[in-house]
Structures are given as structure tokens and as C-alpha cells.
């Protein structure tokens, strides 16, 4: 699992590469700490390379979303695969995120 954070002026692009399973989420949750501090910006979660997500991964997504909501930011989930979309659907996450 790799998490790439690319901070730009108005937005932060967080790229998830690989599997976001439970052990990966432990690392990922540390990696996104800086993102949470900047949650007032538009956060783009780039999921082109995200092949798998478990509930722990979803929790990270939700944590980011909650932080953004608190700081008036915006979260966009981009390029999710059908499988992950299915997981989002099962968990009602489709309603919580703006999916592009």
C-alpha cells in the first residue's frame, strides 16, 4: 500500500495505490495526518490505483470526510473502480462522498 500526498494551492491530492486492507489502513491512517490538518481545502482522493478497500480503509475515508466537514472543506473521490464503488454502495458511502 502506498499513500501519496500531493499538496497544491487549493487542493490536496491523496493517491491510494494498492490494497487498503486492515494492516495497510494502520499505516495509511498515520500517512493522512497532514491531510487532516489541511482539511479546509478541497481534498481529492485519487482511487485509480486503489484495488481493494476494507472497512478500516473506509474508516480513513470517513475520518477525512468528517474533518473536511468540520473545517468547511470538500472531499472528492476520483476514479474509483467498480468493485470499490460496490463497496461504497453497500456501506452507503456513495451518499457521503462526491464521486467523480
Amino acid at each position, binding site marked *: 500500500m502506498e499513500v501519496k500526498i500531493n499538496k497544491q494551492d487549493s487542493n490536496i491530492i491523496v493517491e491510494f495505490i494498492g*490494497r487498503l*486492507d*486492515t*494492516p495497510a489502513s*494502520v499505516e495509511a491512517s498515520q500517512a493522512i495526518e497532514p491531510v487532516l490538518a489541511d482539511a479546509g481545502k478541497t481534498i481529492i482522493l485519487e482511487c485509480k490505483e486503489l*484495488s*481493494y*478497500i*476494507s*472497512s*478500516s480503509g*473506509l*474508516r480513513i475515508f*470517513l*475520518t477525512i*470526510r*468528517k474533518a473536511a*466537514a468540520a473545517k468547511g472543506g470538500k472531499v472528492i473521490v476520483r476514479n474509483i473502480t*467498480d*468493485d470499490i464503488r*460496490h*463497496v461504497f454502495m*453497500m*456501506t*452507503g*458511502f456513495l*451518499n*457521503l462522498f462526491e464521486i467523480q
Partner: protein
Amino acid sequence: MKMKEALGNSSIRDFARGGLMLILIAALTLEATSIIQFYFSQKGIKEEARLRAESEMEATQLKILDVVDQAEAAVRNSIWIAQWCLDFPDSLPSVTRRIVTDNPVVAGSTVAMVPGYSKRRPLFSPYCHKVPGIDTLCFKSLATPEYDYPSQSWFTEPLRLGKGYWSEPYVDEGGGEMLMTTYSVPIFDRKGQAAAVLTADISLDWLTELVGGIEVYPNAFNLVISREGQLMVCPAESLVMQRTFMEMAAKAEDTTTINKLGRSMMSGRSGQIEFKQKGKRYHAFFAPVERTGWSISIFIPDSEIYGSIRRIGAFVKLLQILGIVMLILILRAVAKNQMKYKEIADKKERIENELQIARGIQMSMIPKTFPPFPERHDLDICGIIVPAKEVGGDLYDLFIRDEKLFFCIGDVSGKGVPAALVMAVTRSIFRNIAAHEDRPERIVSDMNESLSDMNESNMFVTFFCGVLDLTDGHLRYCNAGHNAPLILTTDKRSLPIFSNLPLGIISDMEFKGQERYLCYDDALFLYTDGVTEAENSAHEQFGEQRLSDVLSSRRSSIEHLKAMEEAVAAFVGDAEPSDDITMLSIHYLNDKVPEGLERHLTLHNDIQQIPRLSAFIDSIAEKAGLDSSLSMSLNLAMEEAVTNVMLYAYPKGTEGDIDVEAYISPDMLEFTISDSGMEFDPTAAPEADTSLGVEDRKIGGLGIHLVRKIMDSVTYNRENGKNHLSMTKKI
């Protein structure tokens, strides 16, 4: 067999020998009794013969004496008148006539004057006698020069002796002209001088008649001999007065004895004597006739005396022989019967032997050498049929073809030879079909066709057939009405089976096959209902629970079977086993099963183990031919479930294992997660509300939600201190 025949023959021989012995003893006993009886009878009969002879002789003697007495009396009574007439010789003829007339026994009489006593009649002997056949008396003078009476013994002897004298028998030529004997007494005158001799003749014809009339036995003959041994009465009349007894004796075979007899008789003794003549044995009884010096003897041939007893003896012997013959016939019949019984017994034994052989043949069809494939280390197989008393119809079989283990177990309905035959047929059909068919459902349905076609006896076979791919543990199986085998993995359970109908009931039946994977160390335990339905004396059945209990700890196949056999035997106790007990244990030990094919996974309670789970699930999904999205869903659900256990079943800081098992069947995946942590039922957690907005959304509770969403069924149970979470997914 040869040995047995020989034994049989020898016992028949013994019997025959025994029979012969019996006959011999019977014959000897009979012979001995008849000899003893014969001996005593002979003694009695001889005694009787003696008594009869003696009484006859006595009677004859009395009759003779009567005659003799009469003659003597006739003479004595006339002595006085003869004395009176001495002086008047011419009156003497009237004296003689009176004697003859008055005494019927007297055949003739004379008064013979002593020569010269009378001056007038110096020689004078007027004789009066009867002539046979003529009623009148004849008179003649004996004083003729030819006759010369003074020289005759009847004249000389009484004068010499001075008393009455019985002459030797003689044929009186010139006198009586017949065979006669004469009693003569001397007559003395008043001065005491011998003056004349007075005689009375007795014809011996009556004696012949009298003695000849004695018939003690039909072929006995009688003799009378005189003092001098002359034959007076004799069966050969020509010899009468012609021979003496001693002359005859000289010609006899046993001269000594006959001479002795002659001497005894002539000396007036009585007695008996035995001798042989011309091959015949004779008994001679003899007794004297008093006064006359005669001797009567009766000769009885041995055969006459013992004739009757010999006839009886012969008859008895005939009866004995008949008896012995009957005994032999009876013994033969008994021996035949005995042989028949022996034959029946032999036949029974042969049938039993044949049944035994049939049983042997039947058992020889069953693989009995274990390990059956000693060169293979990926299989540990052991099978057994513990036969009940009767020949039964249980079977199992196994063989390897193309790296596949074909195995089966079955139970033919009913018992005895028919079941055994059907069993043999079933086994050979299995071999035939499985030789070219890999799919168990095809094997089973083909077998069903064959068995239904020829099933006129309405017998059926419960059957389970499996084909295990030894390279990857892929087990395909098909059940036909048999009880479910047990599968031993980390735990033990019944192999899921479609029950289907037994073989041989209906043709054109569709049999559905099933499949799953076996992992390293997995085992199958196949059995017939002889195990679970084994009854003890209280008619309780061994049952599936006991069966399952015995298999609880991991053992090798042979240990399983031994343990099961012992457990059943201990349970049944003294009760007679009613059915074959058949078991087959297949222990799969292929440690080279590719990683991705492993169906069992043990994890530590560490979330870092999740990638292993992921790889495990992926391999299952791949094996099950699932697409990537379904694979991912399964991954997700399993990860959530396992993570739950890791986080909640084991309190922080405690270590524990989590077992994951996956079962693949054609239309379903089944997963079981087992752990020995705290009791934890994830299905009891409240349903997460996925409709809430961001602010209200809970961080937790999503995992079990996903499990529920993805899986078709989720069930939890706690057993033996373990949590088991089972999930199924239709595919």
C-alpha cells in the same frame, strides 16, 4: 479334501471292521450256545435211548421168561405123571400130548427113557409135536438110529446135572424139524434112579417175532444169542444158527470191542458199549435173559439216537445262519445309512466349506493389504470388513489410475449368498466402469443402469463413490443412498451429501455429484451401517455420536480402524454381531499441495496476518473460478470477519490462533472461522445504519455489515470453548 476323503474311507472301514467283529462275536456266541445245548441234549438223549433200550429189553425179557416159565411149568407139572407112567411106557405118549395140548407155548414134548431102564422098551422116546399150519398133533418116535436121542444134549445134560436144563437152540432134524430150544428135566423113579428125561420144546419162531418186534428206533436192530454165542435172533435170518456171535465179531471192523461185547453177553452181564462199523457209530445195549443163558442186545445207530437232535441242530444252525445273514444285511443297511448320513454331513460340510471359500473369494476382491500403495507417501489408507457370522454384502474397493484414487464403499441389502453375489457383481462393475470413467456421478449412474437391468431379485446397494485427484486434493464424489462419510479436517463433520437413491432400484436415475478439496492431513472415514447399527445386548445401537467420538483425535488410518473396531466390540459385548462392519479410512498426506490450493489456514491474532488470508481467499476464488469482483467481495467479507475476531475475541495482549477453512462445492463456497478466544458473536452486533449523514456516521460497525451484505448466510455457534462463524456464498 484328499485327507478328508481318506479319513472318511477309513472311518467306513472302521465301521465295516466293527460290523465284522460284531457278526463274528454273534456267530461265536450262537455256536457256543448251540454246542453247549447240543452237548446236554445229547447226554439227555443218550440217556433216554439207554432207558428206552433197557425198558424194551426188560419187557422182552419178561415176555421170554413168561414163555420160559410156562414151558418149565408145563414140564414140572408133568413130572409126577411121567414118574407114575415109568412102569407103563406105553402110556407116556399121552403125557406128552397133554403137555403139548395144554400149553400153547410148547411146540413139542417127549419123554425119553434112559436106555435100558425099561426092559420092555430099552430105547423109547415118543414125541408129540405141533405142525405149523395144521391143527392136529403128530406123533413120532425119536428112538431111531438116525436121531440117536441118547446122544442129544437135551437128554444128556439134565441127567448129568440132575436138574432142569435149557438146551442150546438147535434145529431139530429128525425131531421137531424147526429151530427150537428144549427144556428138559430128569425123571427119577422111586428108588431115585434116573429113568427118563421129560422135555418141552419151544419153537424159537415166536422169539424171532418177539425180539424182531422190538423197535426202539426205526433202524435199530436186535440180537439174541445163546449161552454158546449162537445167533438166535438176527436181522439176517440166514445166519440164524449158522454163525456164532464170535464168528461175526471176527469179521467186524472194531473186533476188540465186539469181542468184548460178545464175552460180556455170553457171561450174562448187562451194559452198553459203543463201536463203529462201516463208518456208522452204534450203541449196543445188552442184558441177559435169566435161566436160559441167553442175551438180548439192541443195536442203535448213532444217527438214530441223535437223528432228531441233529435235525433240530441243523434247523437251529439254519436259523443261526439266517440270523447272521440278517445281521449282516442289517449292518449293511446301517452302514449304508451311516454312509448316507456321512454323505449328508459331508455335503453340509462341503457347502459350508464352499461358503467359506465364497467368503474367501469375496474377501479376496477387497483390498486387504495395507498400505495398499506402499510406494506412495501421500496416502494413508486402511480398510476392513469385520465379517458377521453369515456371509454379507458389504464391500469397499480402491485403486489408483492416472494419479487419481478411485474408492468406494457399499452395502448390499440382505444377507447370505445372494448378497455376496450381488456384492461381487457390484465390485466388478465398479472396476469395469471406473477403469475408463473419472466422474463419480457417471460411474454411479452407469453402475445403477447395470445393476437395475439385471436386478430381478430386487436387491439394492447403497453406495458411495469418490475420485480423489492426488495431485491437488480435488475430491469428487457421488452418493447413492449410503450414509455420509465423515471428513476430518481441523474438526470433523459429515461430508455434505445428496442422499440420492441406492443403486439397482430404478434405471435412468440422475445422480448428482459433489466436490470439494482435501488438504494435507485431511481424512475421510467411510463406513457401513454395520458400525452405527451394531447393537449391544440391550438392543442399543452404537450410533453416530459414538462413532464421531472415537474419531475425535487425529490418528493414522489403521489406528482409526483399530480404535473403532475396539470401541464397537466393547460396546457390543457378548451380543452376536448381526451385520458386517466395514470401514475405510483415507488419509490425504500430500504436503506438496500447491500453496494456492490450501483450503485450510491458521492465523495468529495479528492483523499483519491479513495478507495471508487475502492470498488464501484469492486462491480459493481462483480455484472456484470466481471473477475478480466476487473474489474481492469475498476477500472483504473474510477480512472483516477475521479482523473482528482478532480485535474482539482475543483481549489485547493475549495470543491465539484463528482457523479458517474453506469448502468449495460447485455452487457454493463455505467458510468457517474458528477461534478459541472469548465468546464473541459478531452476528449479535446491531445493524449499522448506512443512511446516516457524515456527522452521525459511526466509525465502527461497518465490518460485520459488509460481511452480512456480501455473504448469503452468516451463522455463529460456540462449541467446546470455540467460536465458529460459518458463512456461505452462492456462486
